[in-house]
């Protein structure tokens, strides 16, 4: 079996590139006369070995430090590449001045080409691409304008229609009140019932015919069984009869005393009759009924 010291000597010589003598000096103790005593190990072998190894590594590092060389090579390559590129630019863009390099060369080329390619506004306008774009945009704008004109007109018409319908529904309730329908005693219920009645007239369209309002259904004028046109007041009258019963009005008077006065039931035919009925009425409720009937028959 090989001795350890011999193995170490061999290792030091091979791995650390030491000579035999260097390895021995490291491993064995030196005698007093300076000669190697192979019978005794160096007590500081470990420390000396580590130190020797550090120096070995340092030497190695100095031997392989090529950053400077690398930079030199890189710069050279870069310069060559740029010079080739500048040469190509000069050739492609017909630049004769060889003193222009790098960014100066690029600027020169850009400025030169910008001046050469400047077009007047008229030139732009004549350009086919511009003309094509202009035509396309104009058509698009006109299409949008037409579309939104139609929308606005639709909104206006719709608004007018809704306002007309609102007024007609209000008139329907007034005409209904004049007929004195039998309604629930609860005010809220009575109001709701009248509102439901008025909503019936949402189903139709309307058209002014002189002072009257013609009723249309599905785009055509609504007619009765005899082919006669139906007007709004007639529609309200017939519809109300289908949904309500009506009170019978009694002439009111003070018990035990003849008053000889009092309002009648029929809607007054003229202002004179209206005044008579109004003034002869005995209570605010009677007067209001007469006023409502007159207003319904004589809308403003």
């Amino acid at each position, binding site marked *: 079996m090989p001795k350890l010291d011999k193995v170490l000597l061999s290792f030091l010589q091979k791995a650390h590139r030491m000579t035999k003598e260097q390895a021995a000096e490291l491993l064995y103790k030196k005698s007093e006369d300076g000669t190697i005593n192979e019978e005794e190990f160096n007590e500081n072998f470990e420390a000396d070995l580590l130190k020797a190894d550090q120096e070995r590594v340092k030497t190695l590092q100095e031997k392989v430090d090529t950053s400077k060389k690398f930079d030199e090579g890189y710069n050279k390559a870069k310069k060559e590449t740029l010079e080739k590129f500048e040469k190509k630019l000069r050739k492609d863009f017909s630049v004769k001045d060889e003193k222009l390099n790098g960014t100066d060369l690029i600027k020169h080329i850009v400025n030169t080409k910008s001046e050469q390619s400047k077009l007047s506004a008229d030139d732009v306008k004549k350009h086919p691409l511009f003309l094509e774009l202009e035509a396309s945009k104009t058509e698009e704008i006109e299409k949008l304008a037409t579309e939104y004109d139609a929308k606005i007109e639709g909104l206006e018409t719709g608004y007018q229609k809704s306002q007309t319908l609102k007024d007609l529904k209000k008139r329907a309730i007034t005409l209904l009140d004049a007929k004195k329908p039998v309604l629930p005693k609860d005010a809220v219920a009575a109001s709701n019932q009248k509102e439901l009645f008025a909503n019936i007239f949402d189903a139709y369209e309307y058209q002014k015919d002189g002072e009257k309002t013609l009723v249309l259904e599905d785009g055509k004028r609504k007619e009765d069984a005899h082919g006669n046109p139906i007007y709004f007041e007639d529609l309200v009258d017939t519809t109300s009869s289908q949904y309500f019963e009506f009170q019978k009005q009694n002439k009111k008077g003070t018990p035990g005393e*003849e008053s000889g006065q009092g309002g009648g039931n029929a809607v007054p035919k003229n202002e004179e009759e209206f005044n008579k009925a109004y003034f002869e009425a*005995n209570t605010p409720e009677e007067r209001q009924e007469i006023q409502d009937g007159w207003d319904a028959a004589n809308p403003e």
Partner: protein
Amino acid sequence: MPVQTGDFSASQLRTSISRADKMWSDDMMQAEFKANTGVYDAVKAEQNANVRILEEPSKDRDVKIHWINACGGKVEDNDGLCEIGGDELSSDSKEYGLKFDKKFSFNVDEYKFRTNDYSMEEVVAKGFMRADKMLSEQICKSMVARIESFKGTNVVNDGTGSVNTVSGNTDIQAADWNERLFAYLHRVAIQNEFSNGFLLSGTNMYEDRFLALSNVGNGEGKGAAKLYQSMRTYFDLFNIDPQLSPELKTYLINRGSLAFASKSIYGAVPKTYIGAGHQHYSIASRNLAGVRFDVKYTNACKEKTMMHKFTVNVKYDLFLNYTGCNEERTGVIALNKVGS
């Protein structure tokens, strides 16, 4: 606000009436113009006579009243024969003139409305309502005076009350004015041959009755409440005591003994008399159901303005049924609180 020029037209009158209707429907406004009419309400509720307005102006007669008379005939021996029936009961009627004729006037300055927030029609509406209130309360005061003058003799001269032959009242001590008095009152009604008596009172018994009815739910209060409710009672806290002060009275009245009548001359539709510069019409009272007031309107120039003048008047009276079973018993007994 545009200035209304010319006469106060029918259209403006309609507007005024309409404005008055709206004001009347407002609680706060109504409180300002609502009259205290307890006396009138009681009399009308208990009136069963029929009053007819006489339209002929030549006679000094304004109304004809048809009274119900249940008297007539006599007790006979029943002879067992088949004869059935007796004297025909009649409804007596009599014509009367209305003695009371009161008026209330107001003016409206047209040019004040150039810069006023109120329209002329609104001011006229308030004028009419004010006239209505004043005249209505005057009518009630007159009715109290009449009722007092109608009081008859109480044939019951024993018990809780004592008949004062000087004043004609039945005096009742203050301490006796409570629910226990009703036993006496029922006896008085029966013995004075009241077929259907009711009470018309000022402040007498009002508070005690109020408390009794409020305590009706209590075991102890039921009896008092029942007694108070055993006879129809009407109160007028404003017109009776002030008229009769310092006396505090309650009237026991037989139903049908009294009849109120009023008469308006003008129709409801305005009539214009161009020559006289007048316009005449009548308007219904909001306070007294069945009463109409006559209105006379004119206008006149005054300095730089036009003054519109309105006079509201009413003719009326209260009558006693003269067809009582005993001519000495009028159907009205005055009960007077005495002592403290």
